[in-house]
């Protein structure tokens, strides 16, 4: 047998073996579904229950965070003037989300290393390192602490929630679910839900989805009118109030007359 023929036979055998060998499995994708994707603030709105579910690669920790847009928020700083507490000046805070909800399978510090927590802004220390306070002369540490305290009280910031449930490994990845109550006083806008699959202290993969909060129906109509056409809104308010007053008088007078005639 000529050498080139033997080489061809070896190559065919090797290729056959290669075809029989199991293929390297593709990376398990991170998936996520947010329900509802739009929260409607109607007349009887009192917050909403949000359900998040999907899959992550097996043996991953899961962190889900929901964040609002970064805006400049202006606050009055309260200080003591004699016996009473008064506003001592305005402070402008920026560089951080208006709303931040963080959920995880285990405490965030057990899932990620410090640098990843800071990069993803997932705890109070990370937020405080990003916060921008104007004027800078103010005691930034105190203002940052008070800002976080205010956000916790408003339930706009909810960190260190370990509410994610993991289910048995599926064929492709591991299934997770999360149910949480949307803060009822969160302003209308577009928020971002992000799921991170964490392994070895790092975020291995992540996925984002929008969550819209919109005013609808009567409250939306009133809010738009009050903001966009304040003079018209003022006239309507007065007319409605006067009509309500005379209407009440008309009804009570009729009832009173009926009672007299009944006697």
């Amino acid at each position, binding site marked *: 047998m000529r050498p080139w023929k033997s080489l061809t036979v070896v190559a065919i055998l090797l290729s056959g073996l290669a075809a029989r060998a199991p293929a390297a499995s593709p990376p398990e994708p991170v998936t996520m579904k947010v329900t509802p994707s739009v929260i409607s603030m109607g*007349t009887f709105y009192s917050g909403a229950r949000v359900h998040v579910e999907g899959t992550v690669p097996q043996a991953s920790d899961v962190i889900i965070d929901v964040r609002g847009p970064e805006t400049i928020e202006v606050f009055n700083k*309260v200080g003591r003037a004699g016996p009473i507490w008064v506003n001592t000046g305005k402070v402008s805070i920026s560089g951080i989300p208006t709303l931040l909800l963080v959920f995880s399978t285990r405490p965030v510090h057990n899932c990620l290393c410090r640098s990843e927590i800071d990069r993803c802004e997932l705890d109070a220390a990370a937020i405080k390192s990003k916060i921008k306070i104007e004027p800078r002369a103010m005691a930034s540490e105190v203002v940052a602490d008070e800002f976080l305290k205010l956000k916790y009280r408003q339930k706009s910031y909810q960190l260190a929630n370990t509410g994610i449930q993991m289910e048995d490994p599926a064929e492709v990845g591991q299934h997770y679910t999360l149910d949480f109550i949307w803060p009822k006083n969160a302003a209308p806008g577009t928020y971002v839900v992000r799921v991170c699959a964490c392994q070895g202290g790092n975020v291995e993969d992540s996925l984002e989805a929008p969550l819209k909060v919109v005013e609808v129906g009567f409250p939306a109509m009133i*809010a738009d009118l009050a903001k966009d056409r304040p003079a018209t809104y003022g006239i309507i308010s*007065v007319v409605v109030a006067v009509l309500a007053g005379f209407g009440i008088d008309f009804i009570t007078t009729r009832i009173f007359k009926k009672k007299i005639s009944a006697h």
Partner: protein
Amino acid sequence: MEILLPVAGMSISLPVLVGAGAMVGFLSGMFGVGGGFLMTPILMFLGIPPTVAAASDSCQIVAAASSGTAAHLRLGHVDMKLGAFVLMGGVSGGWIGVRIIKLLRSMGEADLVIKITYVVFLSLIGGYMFAESLRSLRRGALEPKGHHAARGKSLLSRLPFQVDFRLSRVRHSLLVPFLFGGAVGILAAIMGVGGGFIMVPMMVYLLRVPMHVAVGTDLFQIVFTSAAVTFMQAAVNHTVDLLLVLLLAAGSTIGAQVGTRVGRYLRGDQLKILLASIVLLVMVKMAFGLVQTPAVLLTAAKGH
């Protein structure tokens, strides 16, 4: 069940809100006062921003006063001439008051000023009513301070532009109702009140207007003063929450009907001392709020 207040930007329990309206309406019906001076502090206790509470209360007063005016017009208790001059002063005062609030809001001090104004006025009125009720309980009858009223009247009679107000059977300078109306208009804008609890005693004790005409005329001018304040608050400060107004009006109407019936079983002195106690309690709660260390040393600032 919660309801979303579109201008206040918050959800609040519907039964609590209507209940607050009913409670103030009950007190209004029982004691014969407007109740505006109680409604705004109660709304603030419920967490509604003071500027929205005051502006929306002004609008609610338009509804309540319209209802009262309709009844007094039928009875012939409205002195249109006197009311017109009080009204002119009231609208001017309301305009000044709204500008003051706008300026204070830009400085971040509006909420504080509203609270301090409340504490001052509630303590003055509550204290006066309490002392007067105690005196009348001891003496057995109410006796207005004749010499004080006479001194006030002699000062007022020296002012120019004296005219007769026939229905009220008094003669005064046109400046008097105008200036009184102006002062009450400023208070109406800052405190979100109709001002009846100041204006009626002024008319009765200083201007010598008969009680029933004072009440009717006061309600008549309150409709316009509060309407003007409501319009200006909506146009300038964007703080009138119409949904809040309608719910309060609904609650207060029902409460007023019940309060009127309950009030018939109590003596005048007992009613007055009860009302004075409520006013003083509200004042103490508000004063405590001013000196108590706040839970957070930052408050949201409206407008940048």
